[in-house]
């Protein structure tokens, strides 16, 4: 158990340091706004350093593999198959010293955590809840890095402008020339998604250097720190529950050995391990403490996404792109118009039904242009 505590301490300290560094940088930005552009190089380096960490944590931890088409489903299935096999085999590797000790009759219950590799233990819990997400994130990280490099190149070469740069790498100008709003929208969404999760906060401010954008960057970094701190809490909660579950598994294994009902293959062990873990996690998820923390994380994640989006819009302000905030207004008006049309359609139908129900004394011809839409009868 001591070893496990140690690895948690290390992990908590490392994550806390990241959060503190981040906050320090935020404060620095607040106090030295005039020198921000000189700080750019240093910041970029720092950002790159924490990039991978951030990328892996920014995804809501339990979100991998959802919303796919059939083709993508195969990829997800393959990824899930690999991930599950990985957990299965890693579990064996971790428990192997325990099995071996039991085989040799040298196992003592109190030695359990000394035999378990704490890093491996953490890795399994991370995989179970998607905190690792290295595989699916790699492609995205590569793409984001590519986008970022393109931006950085453009900064170093004043002769290039953003339009040319994107024209090289993205179907932006094709869409422009064809006036294809859907393509433009898709381009923007792809771009915004990449930028939200990578360099937008920093580069957004360098694009025009305006104070509001700078302020947004600072807010965003503060928010990122808050998010990381909460995520840290949630992970700790899961690790503690896992420790408790593993100790219960060990107790079960010991009890079985004593009463002669021991499992005879690893699959049986895995099933037992899984059942106990599930019970413990569900008990945790059923607590108000967990529910409150999860809700707070969802809120922080949502705030963070909103801030990224705002920053991205600041960054793209000089370019002919329709922003989501502008579309919001269009959506609202569209919705209102649709509602009015629906109301009018219903009124027309009601009138038609009333007319149908009341026989006209002088004419048998139905009114011109009478609709055949479904009526709202029998009210």
């Amino acid at each position, binding site marked *: 158990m001591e070893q496990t505590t140690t690895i948690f301490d290390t992990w908590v300290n490392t994550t806390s340091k990241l959060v503190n560094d981040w906050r320090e940088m935020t404060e620095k930005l607040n106090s030295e706004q005039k020198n921000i552009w000189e700080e750019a190089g240093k910041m970029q380096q720092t950002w790159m350093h924490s990039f991978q960490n951030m990328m892996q944590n920014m995804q*809501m931890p*339990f*979100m991998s*593999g*959802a*919303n*796919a088409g059939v083709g993508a*489903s*195969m990829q*997800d*299935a*393959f990824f*899930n*198959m690999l991930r*599950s*096999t990985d*957990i*299965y*085999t890693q579990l*064996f590797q971790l428990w192997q010293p325990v*099995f*071996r000790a*039991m*085989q040799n*009759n040298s196992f003592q219950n109190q030695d359990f955590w000394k035999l378990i590799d704490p890093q491996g233990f953490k890795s399994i819990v991370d995989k*179970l809840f998607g905190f690792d997400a290295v595989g699916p994130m790699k492609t995205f990280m590569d793409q984001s890095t590519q986008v970022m490099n393109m931006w950085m190149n453009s900064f170093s070469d004043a002769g290039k402008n953003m339009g040319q740069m994107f024209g090289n790498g993205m179907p932006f100008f094709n869409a422009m020339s064809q006036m294809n709003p859907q393509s433009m929208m898709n381009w923007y969404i792809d771009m915004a998604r990449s930028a939200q999760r990578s360099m937008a906060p920093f580069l957004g401010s360098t694009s025009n250097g305006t104070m509001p954008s700078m302020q947004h960057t600072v807010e965003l970094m503060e928010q990122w720190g808050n998010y990381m701190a909460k995520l840290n809490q949630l992970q700790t909660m899961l690790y503690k529950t896992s420790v408790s579950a593993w100790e219960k598994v060990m107790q079960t294994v010991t009890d079985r*050995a004593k009463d002669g009902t*021991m*499992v*005879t*293959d*690893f699959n049986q*062990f895995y099933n037992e391990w*899984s*059942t106990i*873990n*599930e019970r413990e*996690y569900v008990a945790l*998820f059923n607590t*108000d403490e967990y*529910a*409150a923390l*999860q*809700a707070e994380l*969802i*809120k922080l994640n*949502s*705030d963070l*996404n909103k801030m990224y989006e705002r920053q991205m819009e600041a960054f793209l302000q000089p370019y002919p792109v329709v922003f989501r905030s502008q579309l919001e207004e*269009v*959506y609202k008006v*569209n*919705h209102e118009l649709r*509602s009015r049309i*629906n109301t009018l359609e219903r009124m027309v139908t009601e009138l038609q039904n009333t007319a149908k129900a009341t026989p006209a004394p002088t004419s048998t011809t139905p009114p011109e242009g009478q609709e055949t839409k*479904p*009526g*709202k*009868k*029998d009210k």
Partner: protein
Amino acid sequence: MYSLSPQNIIEEFAAASTKLARGVEALRQIDELPVGTTPKQKVWEKDKVSLFHFERGPGTNIKTPVLIVYALVNRHHMMDIQADRSFIRNLQSAGLDLYLIDWGYPTPEDKYFTMEEYINGYLDDAVEVIREKTGQKISLMGICQGGTFSVIYAALHPQKVKNLVTLVTPIDFATPRDMLSKWAKHLDVDTLVNNQGNVPGELLNAGFALLKPMLRTNKYVSILNSIDKEGQLHNFLRMEHWIADSPDQAGEYFRKFIKDLYQGNKLVQGTFEMGGSRVDLKNITMPLLNIYAEEDHLVPPEASIALNDLVGSTDKSLTKFAGGHIGVFVGSRSQRELAPGIATWLNERDS
């Protein structure tokens, strides 16, 4: 002495590796996995919502048309996941004339859609289309959240509904075993909707997955044992695809759904309002068949059972079905018993 031998374990792992390799190859061979293949025609559409009419089979003998209302969360294909495991086909074979409302996939422009527009708008329009076509009242069959919608609709428009059938339907949103309810109570839905517009389907899916946290890993470990059985693998993948196919939720409807139902439990308390009208479940006086799943981890039985005490119907049935939330529709017992049971109940009230 502990009985796990190193030799056995090595063999187990060698077998696991082989299965994994076979799994990769098996996945590479699959081009498509059709779902929802029971023949049907689109008979109405508005915005992104469509109404389908399933082709009437020779055995269709129940006159009252049935409108199936599925949840906005996930897609209706689960009821027609494959030809030999199709709740829809089974209902058809049992003699029902079936319609289905397909809610579609909301996009960002749909964020302002309200629950009232879904229920008093699209659903009511679909009901009217069927009534116009058939000249009679309908039987409403609501599933999961679609059941909640159907109950609200039946309370607001009882004159249009001849029979009400609900399956795994949440009505009491504050029962002790309801983990989603516990989570929802803490959710700041205003911030979520204000920031994001529509609520991502993957966020909901992530929550559903946490209700059985080990399942995601266990099912893939298990399927490796059947990797060379094409039929089983395909069934498994169809279900995986269905799980992942989770539409985003229109923001304004979701806000009300969470605040009024999950957080306020207003339907049970009799304080739920829609379009300026209070939804009084006592207005539901038509025959009611309420089916719940004994091991439902998404909608605990108590959350569904509550309905029968709240409605004004005198002809009301409560039926327990073995299995979980999805097993009710795709399980082997379901294939034999559920659809014929519903058809018999409806047939007895078809006069």
